[in-house]
């Protein structure tokens, strides 16, 4: 049995004034599992810390127990420093005797001492019964797959390539660009869409690290962070790739306003995309344009704001007023969504150029009138409380971006969740381009409606995140933790006891448990790279086959048994 070295900290009396450290020391020294007990004045101070490290090294002990202050404070730093002395950090356990005991039980020193004794015993039991779940080193495949070559995907691909990683960039279209190819002017810079992407597109051709596959989709994905086996289906048949990271940048679609505001029935009622096409062909032939915002958006069916529609209408309205002499443009809106400095300035510019704005409420939407061709729009002006009629020969409907069903299918393949609108979920709040599945990143409108500038920024973000992962040749699975420090361990199923019930598969938040057929049985297998040691699988296993070796059932059982043991 490996013995444990125990360090108790007096913290200059902060702990010792309440807890009888002497009696605890005597008790622990009598425990056969304990190698030595060293009581220190202040474990985190240089002198004591150095002596502690020397003692650990000198005795060659593999297990250390600390009785000190809070795990959210200096005790954690001591723990980590001791772990550098050749001891596995997971075998340095600690009990909070200060914030967790002396400082909250100051009026009951006897009770505090009993509690301290019990808690230290419990951690000794942890150390004596813990097992090692054996780390695995994941060899990271050096390439990345970027799915979708719109602004987000292009930006991600170029970012990764510039950082030195080979990139496979695929798109279901013939050439890169996505929706932006059809946009004649991008707000707020007023640069044509293709021109905005020109540099990025050129780079996909010139940079030898980027390989572009047109008219190609993903047929299947297997594997996990660092090692994804992907099958692509393209015009030349199937291609298989092995990549370390996958970036999903598959974009979104614009909703068709079928049946709304006379679309499809009245001439002159068009979508924003059709407006773009008219500009591309020259000047739209109209004397007046009315834009209606939130068509099919911010309603019960699609309760979200699609980010781009207000600036889009401002852009097109300004163009109409600017390019067609004498033309009028009116924007019918519920709120003008131009947050920030740049977009608010864009809104003020539209106001200065004479674009008219009329506000309506959701429960009293405008109505389009016309006989074969749109001739006017009636709207109840919510600010001045009157119904107004705007004569117009062009009615442009701002519809939201909606999730592409192919994105959802891909998300399922990559085992990442989509939200109720079909957009792909991120790790909220400070990891916006990362997903629950390590190694899979999302950017652009597949994630949530955003502008092309934002999509490009997200592509860059995805590139730098993916690159930092790819940049490590091998990665220990224990280090792939979402919290500071290494994971406690990985769950493991005892194949002889596992009945293949699948409870663990259902409950694992990371899809780390899989059922594998061996012979005529199914047995659970844990993908260590994905496991975060939350313990959910172990707690739903009906017969104890699934455990986290470091905090196995015997550990917990022993800790429970010792929790209220009498302390003489």
């Amino acid at each position, binding site marked *: 049995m490996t013995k444990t070295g125990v360090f108790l900290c007096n913290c200059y009396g902060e702990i010792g004034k309440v807890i009888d450290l002497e009696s605890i020391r005597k008790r622990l020294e009598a425990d056969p599992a304990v190698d030595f007990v060293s009581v220190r004045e202040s474990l985190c101070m240089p002198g004591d810390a150095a002596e502690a490290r020397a003692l650990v090294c000198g005795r060659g002990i593999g297990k250390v127990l600390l009785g000190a202050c*809070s*795990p*959210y*404070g200096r005790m954690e730093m001591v723990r980590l420093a001791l772990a550098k002395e050749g001891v596995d950090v997971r075998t340095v356990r600690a009990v*909070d005797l*200060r*914030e*967790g*005991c002396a*400082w*909250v*039980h*100051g*009026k*009951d020193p006897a*009770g*505090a001492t*009993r*509690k301290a004794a*019990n*808690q230290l015993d*419990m951690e000794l039991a942890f150390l004596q019964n813990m097992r090692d779940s054996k780390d695995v080193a994941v060899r990271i495949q050096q390439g990345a797959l970027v799915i979708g070559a719109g602004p987000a995907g292009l930006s991600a691909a170029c970012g990764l390539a510039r950082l030195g990683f080979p990139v496979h960039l695929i798109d279901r279209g013939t050439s890169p660009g996505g929706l932006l190819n059809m946009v004649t002017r991008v707000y707020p810079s007023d640069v044509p869409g293709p021109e905005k992407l020109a540099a990025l597109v050129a780079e996909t051709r010139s940079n030898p690290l980027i390989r572009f596959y047109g008219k190609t989709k993903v047929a299947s994905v297997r594997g996990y962070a660092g090692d994804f086996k992907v099958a692509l289906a393209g015009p030349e048949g199937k291609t298989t790739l092995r990549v370390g990271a996958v970036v999903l940048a598959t974009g979104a679609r614009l909703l068709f306003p079928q049946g709304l505001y006379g679309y499809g029935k009245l001439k002159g009622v068009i979508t924003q995309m059709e407006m773009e096409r008219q500009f591309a062909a020259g000047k739209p032939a109209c004397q007046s344009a009315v834009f209606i915002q939130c068509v099919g958006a911010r309603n019960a069916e699609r309760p979200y704001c699609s980010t781009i529609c207000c600036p889009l209408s401002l852009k097109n309205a300004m163009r109409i007023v600017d390019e067609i002499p004498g033309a009028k443009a009116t924007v019918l809106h519920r709120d003008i969504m131009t947050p920030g400095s740049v977009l608010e300035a864009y809104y003020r510019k539209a106001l200065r150029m004479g674009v008219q704005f009329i506000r309506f409420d959701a429960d009293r939407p405008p109505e389009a009138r016309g006989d074969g061709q749109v001739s006017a729009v009636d709207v109840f002006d919510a600010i001045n409380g009157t119904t107004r009629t705007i004569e117009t020969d062009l009615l442009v409907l701002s519809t939201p971006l909606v999730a592409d069903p192919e994105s959802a299918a891909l998300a399922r393949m990559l085992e990442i969740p989509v939200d109720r609108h079909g957009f792909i979920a991120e790790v909220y709040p400070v990891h916006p381009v990362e997903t*629950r599945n390590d190694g899979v990143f999302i950017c652009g409108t597949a994630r949530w409606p955003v502008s092309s500038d934002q999509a490009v920024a997200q592509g860059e973000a995805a590139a730098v995140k993916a690159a930092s992962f790819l940049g490590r040749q091998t990665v220990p699975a224990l280090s792939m933790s*979402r*919290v500071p420090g290494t994971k*406690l361990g990985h769950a493991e199923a005892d194949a002889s006891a596992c009945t293949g019930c699948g409870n663990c598969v259902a*409950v694992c*938040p*990371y899809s780390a448990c899989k059922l594998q057929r061996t012979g005529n049985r199914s047995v659970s297998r844990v993908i260590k790279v994905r496991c*975060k*040691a*939350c*313990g*959910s699988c*172990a*707690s*739903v296993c009906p017969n104890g086959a699934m455990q*986290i070796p470091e*905090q196995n059932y015997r550990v*917990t*059982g022993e*800790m*429970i*048994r010792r*929790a*209220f043991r009498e302390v003489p």
Partner: protein
Amino acid sequence: MTADAKNVNILVFACRWCGLIGADTAGRRRMELPASFRVIPVECAGYVEPDAVIRAYASGAAGVAVLGCHIGGCRFNDANHPALKRLELLKTLLDTTGIGGNRLLLGFGTAHEYHQWADTIRAFHEHVAGLPSMASWLPAKQ
């Protein structure tokens, strides 16, 4: 502390995040708490299974508390949802067997701020202290 208070043994399973950060801050504020509870830190409340809770009662705990993060706030992507459901179910079982579901406290999200942690612990201590002794449930001493 009265003689009764000696039998107020409370075992707290607390996740290292919302479960224990409140405890830490309560400590920093020197809030006085009864010394009747022992803490088993876990990565996530999802680790806590009914078997462990029952074992705790069998080992002398008069009350068990499971403290985790808010529903929707779990670091491990909602691993606390199934945990809450199965522990609520366990309460029903405890009621049926006569041990009493009121000996199991589920605090998901209520203990991440220090005064809430302190109030939770004190209130549970008072509550358990008022319950009849667990003696009839425990095995005879060896």
